[in-house]
């Protein structure tokens, strides 16, 4: 209970300082929109093609955006050594991690919600036909990115070449989650419900989230207390 309260404090703090400077929001949002635009030039996709790889395309953009967001996650604590104060405070490592992961989730999810209509316009898709399922799947995929990303951000925060190292470690690990969420998004974008043989993807995505969240919460203290 205290852990959740502390996590909420950290998340609120992270979001507040992000909205104050808008450093990662602005850069990530413009970056995502530019990539979406570039892709639409590169492929000039027909409706059939979109049904086949629309989800993949969208999640490529989100994966890039996610790396940009989580890169700032622990780096935000570096100036003035704020991380020391947080670790010495009563908040546990798990609470710090969860708070930061939630903040990254909210930021990324917000950016995704802006990108979705842009995607619809550029690629001429009526994406809102199964909006409920789509948002649910987006949330699951975003949590996978935010959770694993924030944890690896803690692992790599003190490194030279941190901006490069984080995606190098993150993307290979995320392949199962990204693959599932791409498949699911593909179907949902065409307005169909998730077919029965796709529930395996859903299970894989949920299983991945459960396992990565558990491991991260369990190991956060080890990583943060040096």
């Amino acid at each position, binding site marked *: 209970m205290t852990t959740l309260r*502390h996590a909420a404090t950290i998340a609120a703090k992270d979001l507040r300082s992000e909205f104050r400077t808008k450093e990662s929001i602005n850069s990530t949002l413009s970056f995502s929109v530019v990539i979406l635009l570039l892709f639409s030039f590169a492929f000039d996709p027909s409706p059939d093609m979109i049904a086949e790889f629309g989800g993949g395309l969208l999640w490529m953009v989100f994966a890039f955006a996610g790396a940009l967001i989580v890169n700032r996650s622990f780096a935000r604590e570096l100036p*003035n*050594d*704020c991380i020391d104060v947080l670790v010495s*405070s*009563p908040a546990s490592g798990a609470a710090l991690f969860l708070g930061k992961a939630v903040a990254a989730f909210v930021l990324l999810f917000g950016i995704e919600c802006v990108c979705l209509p842009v995607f619809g316009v550029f690629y001429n898709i009526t994406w809102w036909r199964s909006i409920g399922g789509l948002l649910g799947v987006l949330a699951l995929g975003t949590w996978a990115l935010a959770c694993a990303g924030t944890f690896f951000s803690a692992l790599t925060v003190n490194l030279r070449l941190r901006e490069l190292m984080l995606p190098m470690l993150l993307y290979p690990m995320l392949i199962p989650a990204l693959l599932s969420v791409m498949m699911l998004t593909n179907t949902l974008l065409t307005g169909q419900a998730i077919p029965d043989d796709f529930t395996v993807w859903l299970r894989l995505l949920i299983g991945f989230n459960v396992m990565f969240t558990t491991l991260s919460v369990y190991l956060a203290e080890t990583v943060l207390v040096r």
Partner: protein
Amino acid sequence: MSAPAVAAAGVWKYFGDYPALRDVRFELQPGECLALLGRNGAGKTTLLRILGGLSGASKGAVEINGGDVRASETRAKIGWLGHSIGLYDELSARENLRTFGALYGVTTAMITEWLAKVNLSHVADSPVREYSRGMRQRLAVARSFLHEPKLLLLDEPFTSLDDKAIALLQGLLAEARAGGATIILSTHQIREAMELASKVALLDRGKLVHFGERTREMVEDPGYLYRTYGGAA
């Protein structure tokens, strides 16, 4: 007999194979003030970080008031002031104190009180980035005393502070001691340390070469300690 405020039992800290701390052991009773002396690289900061739970000992154990440092209740009673101010530049003074206050369970009323105490009420809602150096330091001091800690860990507190902040800090430290708080401060400036300290510890290359009461010789002759026990550069 209650548990000692700080007990270090044979603390070792390795960086790889290099022992930054070697078998450091001491006990501090509640209300005492320890000046931690030693040249650069002697392990002062490393020891303070272990006592504050920022870093784990490789061997040995540290107990604060008889409890483990990484237990949440123990850390709720520790105040930490490191080399840097530990504040968020883009947030205002009030938001900074509220954030940290929330972690320690400090009320809003007390935060307002503290802002007045460190003379920052008039700028409480502008971002810390716009503050002068002295203002930032005063806010950092307020942050570390906010939750009325029972143990204060201060890393070189007097080196980066300006006169006003030093006066403020010394006042608060005296107040805290009167309230029964234990204080450990690492320092270069022997004179200022001696005014406050009741005990003196000297670290040399990770070893605790001296630990004991502050004596008259130490106060009168700043070079005495290093000459007697070694550990000077």
